[in-house]
């Protein structure tokens, strides 16, 4: 596996004399994975996202993106080109007056020739299935559609990593599904690396790997099923467990022994079937 991002012993605070928001954080992001970063409000997740693309710089430690160190002034643009962020509020990141203009914004800034730019816009907008909306104004779009346009604007710049910073938390269930589905397609079809900062644990359960943050520290890391196995720890820091897991934990307390924990209802019902046929 190829390492795209390496975060080494990073500490960060917004002002001197204020408490550290991140404390000695270390992590690595592999090419092509879907990494979920979970933690409650104020655990330092969003600060971490901003360090990963050089919007913020570490006070201690280093952030390396494909070998570029964010401390190095000449690297910063290399990093920002490689790491795109979709933020929480769909209304705060729409800069164009139409879908087309909005997607063009980043490309214009990179000084791309017009012909090439138009081609890139068409490609990117198609990938997020917004090609029928090219001339639409932002206020005619739903939250989910706006977030997909934000994703198009980012992938037009051909980044290697897209960070979703609670990008679905202001959307309704339909909008949330739409955006996650779009990102999953980009991951499968284009090999995009995705870092999803979220407190939707159902979503985290579908990630390849997850990281749990609390009070500025990484307190756990692993494949979701292993992390969820430590349910008490997650509950203690204010996160919920996916419903199938809650049912299994309650049944365990009543003396039923599951061979393995499951994160989907379908698997849970299968496990119950196995249990019942054993007895």
């Amino acid at each position, binding site marked *: 596996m190829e390492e795209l991002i390496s975060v080494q012993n990073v500490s960060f605070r917004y002002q001197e004399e204020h408490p550290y928001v991140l404390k000695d954080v270390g992590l690595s992001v592999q090419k092509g994975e879907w990494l979920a970063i979970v933690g409650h409000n104020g655990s330092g997740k969003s600060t971490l996202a901003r360090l990963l693309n050089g919007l913020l710089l570490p006070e201690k430690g280093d952030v390396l993106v494909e070998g570029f160190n964010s401390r190095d002034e000449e690297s910063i643009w290399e990093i920002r080109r490689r790491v795109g962020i979709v933020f929480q509020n769909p209304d705060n990141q729409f800069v164009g007056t139409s879908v087309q203009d909005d997607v063009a914004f980043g490309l214009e800034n990179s000084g791309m020739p017009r012909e090439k730019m138009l081609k890139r816009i068409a490609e990117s907008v198609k990938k997020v299935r917004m090609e029928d909306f090219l001339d639409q104004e932002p206020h005619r779009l739903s939250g989910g559609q706006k977030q997909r346009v934000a994703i198009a604007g980012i992938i037009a710049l051909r980044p290697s990593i897209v960070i979703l910073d609670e990008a679905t938390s202001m959307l309704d269930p339909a909008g949330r599904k739409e955006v996650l589905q779009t990102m999953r397609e980009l991951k499968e079809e284009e090999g995009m690396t995705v870092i999803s900062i979220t407190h939707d644990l159902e979503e985290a359960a579908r990630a390849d790997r997850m990281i749990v943050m609390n009070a500025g520290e990484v307190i756990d890391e692993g494949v979701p099923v292993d992390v969820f196995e430590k349910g008490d720890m997650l509950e203690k820091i*204010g996160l919920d467990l996916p419903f199938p897991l*809650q049912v299994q934990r309650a049944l365990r307390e009543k003396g039923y022994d599951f061979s393995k924990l499951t994160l989907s209802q379908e698997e849970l019902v299968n496990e119950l079937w196995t249990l019942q046929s054993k007895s």
Partner: protein
Amino acid sequence: MDITVKELEHSYNRGTPFERNALKNINLSIPSGTFQTIIGHTGSGKSTLIQHLNGLLKPSAGSIQIGDFLIRAGEKEKRLKALRKHVGIVFQYPEHQLFEETIEKDIIFGPLNFGVPLEEAKQRAAKLIHQVGLDESYLERSPFDLSGGQMRRVAIAGVLAMKPSILILDEPTAGLDPRGRREIMGLFYRLHQEEGLTTILVTHSMEDAAHYSDNIVIMEKGGIALQGNAEHIFADSDALKALSLDVPETVQFIHRLEERFDRKLPHSVFSLDAAVDAALTILQKEEKS
């Protein structure tokens, strides 16, 4: 105060080419003390409907009776300010509306505006800051130094400070983490019971709808598509699917169990405990046989 909505219609941009019918023939009765939930997709008319309940929007046709206040199309209800004292609305992301220097000033702004004496308003603030889960040391602080979740609590205290008898909540937990969501919903439910409030909750969460509501309304394209208690609404998952809405996870689980084990189970299962009990019934019955 009982709320009765009769044949309510609302169109935006009336008389222009952009006219759009946002509400059509809404009939709804909310007896005093009810926990009423409104569900629907973005654009289904939920927000338009609740803005009629304190006179922020006027009906294009039909009427809204709230206690002895009557809002009718084409007529002016002269006592809107008095009505608004009774109907508190917690809008989406209410923390965006904080503006005062200190938290106390923000909380007492509404009551002072409605003529409550300063001392009494301050007493309310001191009591409310505890109720929303913060302590009195916060009162002198700036609301803008707080975390998003804390700011929301302060904004909610500001609405409660007006002692509304009807409390309208427009997606009050959007963007909060799971613990924050539980705490805020717990707070509203406690207030609903202790103060005998009429609570109207707009939400996308089927779990919250199932858990708290006396009555649920499902809106679609400006009209009411389904109406009833949780048991009734979630009994027909096909009708919900047709509206692209889900049933609560607990109900999904029951359906899966029924299908796999070819058994009939009670459908009004809206809590984890009830879902676990259903699983136990299956495991235990099968053991005995």
